[in-house]
């Protein structure tokens, strides 16, 4: 499918086509620090989890006060906050919902991402200022179902991960509703909401946040033939696996924008600030560059290389271009692979002494070649010189996570910039 030109999202300005209806870049945040990083690095909106009614019970989740602080921070950047309340509730989970939704509304949050009609209807009634976005947990896969949710008054729908470009195009043509679609991150291999492997295998409820990712395990495939159970593959062969490669649609962003998709979603509330900063930086650059001059846009090799610096699994396009084959799954040893270590985050920079104050996140030492990156500085490499602790004592290495260290760097950096190091 070639890239179409969507006149509804663009205008001709000074003889040049410009995308004037830019899509939202939506990033995940598991805690306040991650939220601030996502916003600072250029996310237009951030989705977070509260302490109730959300999936990812392991993600560090926000109290109402923290939501409020997040909203205040985001407001300074004109960014929006959405709260995931996307469990399928059991009867017992129904208590406290009204208060919770009113508290979210009171915190200034823009909207909730929700799957259970219980929460949708309760929200309409008790917290009418919140936008309601349908979660991917509903596995929304066709335009008539999109029409249904439009009629129910929802502002936006997140599509099933199984929908592709052509399907989304038809949904956009048929129904006037905002569409949010995943562009990057880990994937469910099942239709979301329709997988209870965790329940049956480990008595943990996947649709209430207990998913233990049984789909990432190995199994042996057998057949029953004339009453006999026969393994279909030898022990030394790779076992049956369902594990999908992570989604990465960076090179399809032009097409995604022309489809008129309203919000491009990055998965990963459990991911690190380094991951969030890197992914947001690169998608921000691609979206901005394409929208400014779509007809002359060329994706830069360094953007793609930059994105790979936080990769932790192999990646694929999933359903965007059609039915994914076995090449989009991982068989055998598929342990995570990282190529860069996140070494620290800049807290301060002294213009007079050129000294950086940095909070350490991973081991580094004098003589290491490191890379700084941030929204204002782009990327540059330096060799680390002498490192000092807070008392001015020289260190042979920065060894301790969260330790505050100082060293000189002639090129200016800013608070929130990050430092990483290639692993060799």
């Amino acid at each position: 499918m070639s890239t179409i030109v969507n006149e509804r999202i663009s205008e001709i300005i000074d003889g040049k086509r410009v995308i004037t209806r830019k899509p939202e870049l939506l990033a995940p945040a598991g805690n306040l620090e991650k939220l601030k990083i996502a916003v600072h690095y250029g996310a237009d909106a951030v989705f977070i989890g509260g302490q109730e009614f959300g999936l990812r019970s392991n993600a560090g989740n926000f109290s109402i006060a923290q939501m409020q602080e997040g909203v205040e921070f985001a407001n300074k950047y004109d960014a929006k906050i959405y709260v995931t309340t996307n469990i399928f509730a059991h009867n017992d989970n129904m208590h406290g919902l009204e208060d919770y939704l009113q508290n979210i509304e009171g915190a200034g949050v823009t909207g909730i991402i929700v799957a259970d009609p219980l929460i949708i209807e309760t929200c309409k009634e008790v917290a009418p200022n919140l936008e309601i976005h349908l979660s991917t947990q509903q596995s929304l896969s066709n335009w008539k179902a999109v029409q249904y949710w439009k009629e129910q008054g929802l502002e936006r729908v997140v599509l099933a991960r199984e929908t592709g470009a052509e399907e989304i195009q038809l949904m956009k043509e048929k129904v006037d509703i905002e569409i949010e679609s995943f562009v990057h991150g880990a994937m469910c291999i099942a239709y979301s909401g329709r997988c209870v492997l965790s329940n049956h295998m480990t008595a943990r409820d996947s649709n209430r946040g207990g998913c233990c990712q049984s789909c990432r395990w190995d199994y042996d495939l057998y057949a029953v033939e004339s009453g006999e159970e026969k393994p279909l593959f030898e022990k030394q062969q790779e076992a049956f696996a369902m594990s999908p490669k992570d989604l990465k649609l960076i090179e399809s962003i032009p097409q995604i924008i022309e489809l008129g998709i309203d919000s491009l979603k990055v998965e990963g509330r459990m991911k690190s600030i380094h991951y969030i900063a890197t992914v947001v930086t690169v998608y921000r650059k691609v979206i901005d560059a394409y929208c400014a001059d779509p007809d002359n846009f060329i994706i830069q090799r360094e953007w793609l290389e930059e994105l790979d610096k936080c990769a932790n699994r192999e990646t694929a396009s999933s359903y965007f271009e059609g039915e994914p084959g076995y090449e989009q799954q991982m068989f055998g040893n598929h342990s995570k692979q990282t190529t860069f270590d996140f070494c620290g985050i800049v807290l301060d920079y002294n213009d007079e002494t050129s000294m950086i104050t940095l909070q350490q996140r991973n081991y580094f030492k004098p003589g290491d070649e490191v890379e700084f990156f941030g929204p204002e500085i782009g990327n540059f490499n330096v060799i680390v010189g002498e490192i000092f602790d807070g008392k001015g004592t020289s260190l042979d290495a920065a060894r301790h996570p969260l330790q505050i260290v100082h060293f000189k760097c002639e090129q200016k950096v800013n608070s929130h910039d990050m430092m990483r190091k290639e692993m060799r």
Partner: protein
Amino acid sequence: MKKPQLLVTPHSLEHIAALLDAGADAFLVGEEQFGLRLAGEFPLEAVKEATQLIHAQGKKIFIAMNAIFHNDRVDALAPYIEELDKIAVDAIVFGDPAIVIARREAQSEIPLHWDAETISTNWFQVNYWGKRGASRALLARELSMEEVVEIKENAQVEIEVLVHGMTCMFQSKRSLLGNYFLFQDQAMEVENRKAAKNMFLHDKERENKYPIFEDLNGTHIFSPNDICIIDELEELFEAQIDSFKVDTVLHTEAYALAVVSYYRQAIDAYAESQEEYEDIKAELLEKIEEIQPALRPLDTGFYFKETVY
């Protein structure tokens, strides 16, 4: 006492005739294009014949339209519903809201039964879909007895639960078996096993065996055990649950017949008196254990099991 309806998924027209004799009150049929994980394939012609057969005995026929639809299949929904209207089936089972829209387009008033499987988890939802055309809801199998009873107490629609058979615990759109054979460089196997329903995944750590097959709707993986609560039906009777479902997918016709006849006995006995049911329930369980395939252990699902999250 109003007896709960005994609903079964038949394999064929002949099977329906036999199941009627065995005491089934209602049948769920359909075709792969619209319905999920059916025991048999019933194109419209067969639905018509089945309806005549079933209605002649005063029993009910429901049509499975509970697939997760993509754009390529939604245009076929309203015409299919129009055909079902002509045949005068008793209900359409659905899980995708596209059916609410398609039914309206078809100007049909066939009652809907809401069955979205894993996500049908609380009483608010069943009433929500009740306001949108559903006269019945089938509950998620991952609920406890207590939760089922509480839903029934608060429901404005009929409630159906699975009392016997396996349940699907995973549906992927991807061809996970085909992909695995291709990865192993066995393209021939993809062809050979396309329709095969004799495969399972072995989970060594839990010593579980999960049936798996692939069809038009993707890859389906089933629970390691068959639910069987023939000796634990008291609370469901007391709560006046409206329908007991026996799912016979991946079982033989003969097995389905026997199981239906045992649940028939259980229901009829309880209708006489609780004591009568108490007297025969252990024996009924034994009879099922006798015919139960070795590959499929019995358990009581989540009726008496806690889940955490």
